């Protein structure tokens, strides 16, 4: 009786520690977005914010973060659409090809995801300059597609493998073309898998910084992570505005995590463990 109580007590402490470890630092930072400058730098810290919206309005009017947000949405959104399209077609083929071939190709694709970005950025930068694609959306979208494809193909190939081939056979008998049977039969049935791959690709592209920093040197084209990293104040560090911009950038992601926690957990482990 006593032992069971102690175990439960320790478990609850563990849960609170885990939640505090994960949330507290970020909550504290985000609170600064709702404080004024004197409150932010006060010692002892002011735990309750004044809920001044000054930082948000200044981040929008003086630093133009809506612009960065728009660039991020265009780049991450397009990259996700292209990745999912190419990933669906490739994942489907890998699910239907002989296992032995598919395995070798999947391992090659996985290896692509392991490369350090530094080993590819020099030539990518030169290639984009040659194409005149530096500071263009497509100049960032294509590298993002390449970087998000491996995980997407893995998730989708493993998902399509669960779909019985009789489904396509039936569609072919009904007069569908091969691609038609993929689009009309397999894709609608695979919505959960597609969705998982799309969320993970989007989060990756939304958060990516290294390539964005190199390819988008023109502030008019920069994405949110670059904007946040290069935030400059006139005299002091504008913590309120940085926190406000961080909050706006992270809010959609937190929303996704809260809604699709289960999909993200299974999707991430698919690339690593599940077969």
């Amino acid at each position, binding site marked *: 009786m006593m032992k069971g109580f102690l175990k439960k007590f320790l478990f609850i402490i563990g849960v609170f520690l885990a939640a505090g470890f994960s*949330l507290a630092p970020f909550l*504290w930072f985000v609170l600064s977005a709702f404080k004024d400058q004197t409150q932010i*730098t006060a010692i002892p810290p002011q735990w309750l914010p004044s809920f001044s919206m000054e930082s948000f309005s200044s981040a929008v009017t003086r630093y133009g973060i809506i612009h960065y947000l728009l660039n991020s949405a265009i780049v991450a959104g397009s990259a996700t659409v292209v990745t999912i399209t190419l990933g669906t077609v490739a994942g489907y083929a890998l699910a239907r090809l002989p296992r032995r071939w598919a395995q070798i190709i999947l391992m090659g694709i996985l290896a692509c995801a392991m*490369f350090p970005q530094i080993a590819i950025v020099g030539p990518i930068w030169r290639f984009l300059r040659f194409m005149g694609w530096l500071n263009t959306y497509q100049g960032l979208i294509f590298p993002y597609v390449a970087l998000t494809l491996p995980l997407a193909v893995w998730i989708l190939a493993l998902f399509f493998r669960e779909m019985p081939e009789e489904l396509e056979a039936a569609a072919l008998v009904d007069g569908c073309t091969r691609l038609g049977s993929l689009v009309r039969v397999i894709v609608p049935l695979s919505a959960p898998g597609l969705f998982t791959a799309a969320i993970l690709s989007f989060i990756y592209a939304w*958060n990516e910084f290294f390539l964005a920093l*190199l390819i988008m040197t023109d502030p008019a084209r920069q994405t949110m992570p670059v904007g946040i990293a290069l935030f400059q104040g006139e005299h002091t560090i504008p913590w309120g505005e940085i926190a406000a911009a961080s909050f706006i950038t992270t809010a959609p992601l937190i929303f996704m*995590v809260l809604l699709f926690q289960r999909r993200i957990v299974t999707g*991430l*482990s698919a690339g690593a463990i599940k077969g």
Partner: protein
Amino acid sequence: MTRKDQNFYLGLLVPATAVLLLFIAAPIVHSIFLSFHRIIIGLPQLKTPFVGLDNYRELLNDPVARHSFWITIIFVGTTTFFELLIGILLALLIHHSFPGRGALRACVLIPWAIPTVVSAQMWRFLFNDAYGVINYVIFGANTSQYIPWLALPSTALLSIVAADIWKTSSFAALLILAGLQVIPEELYQAAKVDGAVVWQRFLHITWPLIRPALLVALLFRTIDAFRVFDLAFVMTQGGPADATNVLQLYGYKKMFVEGWMGYGSAISVCIFIMVMVLAIAYVRMVGRRLLEASV
């Protein structure tokens, strides 16, 4: 499967393969090629002469590069160790079935979902030398004792390590969770009947059975830690006195700030080789599991 079928499926692979070849495989080969040349971005009139192994020879005698190498090794070793340790604890917690499990899983995922740049700014704020909450927690209102964490060579690397552990422990936890989920519940029940207590069950059931998942997490985290860039770029710019000048940041500075494309490529090829050794082990492990699962 007929030949026509096979050709159709192979045809479907073409677009994805083309993108991967063009933006990942070809650039790597090209990086190796560039590393044998002297290329200075700002001075195109110097052309790009072939210099053989000169860049690599120079790299071996470059004290900053050697320092960067050791800094990166320390970073990779400490972050991976603590991420796996915290990862195991988190995984055990979020594996446990209780009413708030979904909510706790979502909480644990949040550090992973936050852009690294945002978490870097966040830690820069928390570690601030004048009004950072970390100093306040340690020293109270006594500001004269406050430590400028990011400005001291001895603590700057520590701060970046802490920021990385916070950010990616949850990812390690997910990989380990996937391993926990395949352990049959009956094993624990049988052990309970035999009178095994909690730590005995962990030691004799959980531990041996999650070891493969742990190894996957270890390899994946090691590979990923080698690519650290964002945290150092935002929190310290590699300083103070190169104390956080990790390899990818050093390569970036050589290539894009100083414009030494050839020399920077030599650095990036070295990082590539180090990571590739680990990556091959990783891919073979995961690949074998895929084959086993599909039989």
